[in-house]
């Protein structure tokens, strides 16, 4: 598995955990293709809380313009991947 794919999986797992906790539903498993309307109860309120909890978890801050236009979870994962400090997170081994 490539480095990028590995860190994608890891980010996805963290995001799934955040949303599970917010919605109290442990059956939630996000994929790169998941859209908000696919998850019952992921409304505008839960979305804002999800975004802020994600910012806390990864130590980042999304741009407002991005928050409104993430089409799916994959876009959020890519945005996080682009913002994380290189090599700063577990699993993100330096490229060989």
């Amino acid at each position, binding site marked *: 598995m490539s480095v990028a794919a590995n860190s994608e999986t890891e980010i996805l797992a963290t995001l799934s955990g955040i949303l599970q906790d917010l919605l*109290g539903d442990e059956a939630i498993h996000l994929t790169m293709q998941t859209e908000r*309307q696919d998850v019952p*109860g992921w409304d*505008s*309120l839960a979305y*804002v809380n999800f975004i802020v909890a994600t910012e806390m978890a990864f130590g980042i801050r999304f*741009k407002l313009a991005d928050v409104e236009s993430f089409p799916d979870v994959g876009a959020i994962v890519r945005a996080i991947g682009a913002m994380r400090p290189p090599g700063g997170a577990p699993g993100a081994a330096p490229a060989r």
Partner: protein
Amino acid sequence: MLFNSYVFLLAFLPATLIGFHLTGRFGRDAALLWLIAASLVFYAWWRPLNVLLIAPSILINYAIARALLRVAAPRPRLARVLLLGGILFNIAFLGYFKYALFLTSVAHDVFGTNRLLTAVVLPLGISFITFQKIAFLVDVHGGRISRFSLRDYALFVLFFPQLVAGPIVHYREMMPQFHAAPCRCRAEDLAVGASLFCFGLFKKGILADQIATYVSPLYAAAAGGAHPALLDAWLAALGFTLQIYFDFSGYTDMALGLARCFGIRLPMNFNSPLRATSIIEFWLRWHVSLTRFLTAYIYNPLSLALTRRRLARGKAVIGRRTTPAAFVTLLLFPTLLTMFLSGLWHGAGYQYVLWGVLHGVFLCINHGWRLLRTRLWPKARRGTWPGTAAGFTLTFLAVVAAMALFRAPTVGTALRLWGGMAGLNGTTLPEAIYAHLGPLPAALGILPDWSGGAQSLEAWAWTAVLLAIALGLPNTLHLLAAHEPALGVKPQAGAGWLARRLQWTPSAAWAVGLAVLGAAGFLSLGRLSEFLYWQF
């Protein structure tokens, strides 16, 4: 001109389509300029003066956007000032035409001042146009739009299918389409577009306008001081809910269809909202492009800023351990403010504002319930049928009751209607039915109604049919799902049992069916009625 008028259907639309097809041969630039010119004619038809109002507003917005583009990166502070100036200009523009009169009447009510303004003619569609212009400036400021020309901007604002009553579109979802459109009339686009238009014309001309003939007198009577009895009050509320749904979703189908004839897809606006099982879901299905706008440009920024600020100060936010303070600051305040503005946007009147706030309260209750449920019964199974049925019933009743407020000319009228719906004004039955029920009605305190029994039965029959269509039949997006009738609609939308059987195909059966619907709609043109949403 109205979509449902002879001049539009027999002259403007054919001429515009043929012109588009012919100018398309000379290249995209010519075809797009043709569309702008046609849209200006469309807009000027009611009042040529309108063009003199909208043209400077387009030029000023364009100039501000250009300046924003230049200073956004090197001078962020100046960019913010420019953005704020641009938003204020647009709000002031809308405010003068739409709210000046309302504000003077509020001042009159509160302070007893004299009314100075007597009449301001509202340029058509100004509320919709203003929202799109503000969104454009915010998007340029946020770096989401990096290239645009005056032609593209003018086309974005003026494109006639969505000009006067939406759907409210984003520049970034429209322009790539115009830049990629083949700029000639294609068979599939014309077939899908004309089909959508026929559905819309039928919904508006037959369904909405017919139920309106039963509903309007009830509101007129209540406005005149009458206290409607139980069944009449419910007919008024339920009938108007169906009227506005078929009116506005019919209008939207027509707008989607018209745009599609030019190869352009507009975003969806309605997705069977009356089937929603919660108020939150209702707003994701009703006037979707407005909800999307309000969420993106008011609710999200406000809610995000407040949540971040509370977190930075170490205070509780909304989640498993929501505190009352967090609930008020992070949910109640942004939701009520957003819905208050939504109400005000709909119209300058106390009843619109109250309608918005009422829906804000509904939304807060809905969100509060979701939080409470997660905390109290974390393991409870979701989506059980009794829960869904209860959610549907409650949502439906809340929406219908609120619609009476939306339609009533004054708040007092709405209160009389609500009183009637609650049974405070007694119950009557048409005499013809009353007489056949023996001593039962009298024992229940029901009185005979000697006026218009047949018409009342007819009205209820129409209500039942419209309700069955709204709740039971696949909607137009479902039927045409395989052809992306609105931006982003996926083929899976037509996966329901009935939708699969009724899927639209370019077949003889559908051609006959749609011709009947279209012809019925066309024949209803004589009575020419305006779309409810064209006043906003």
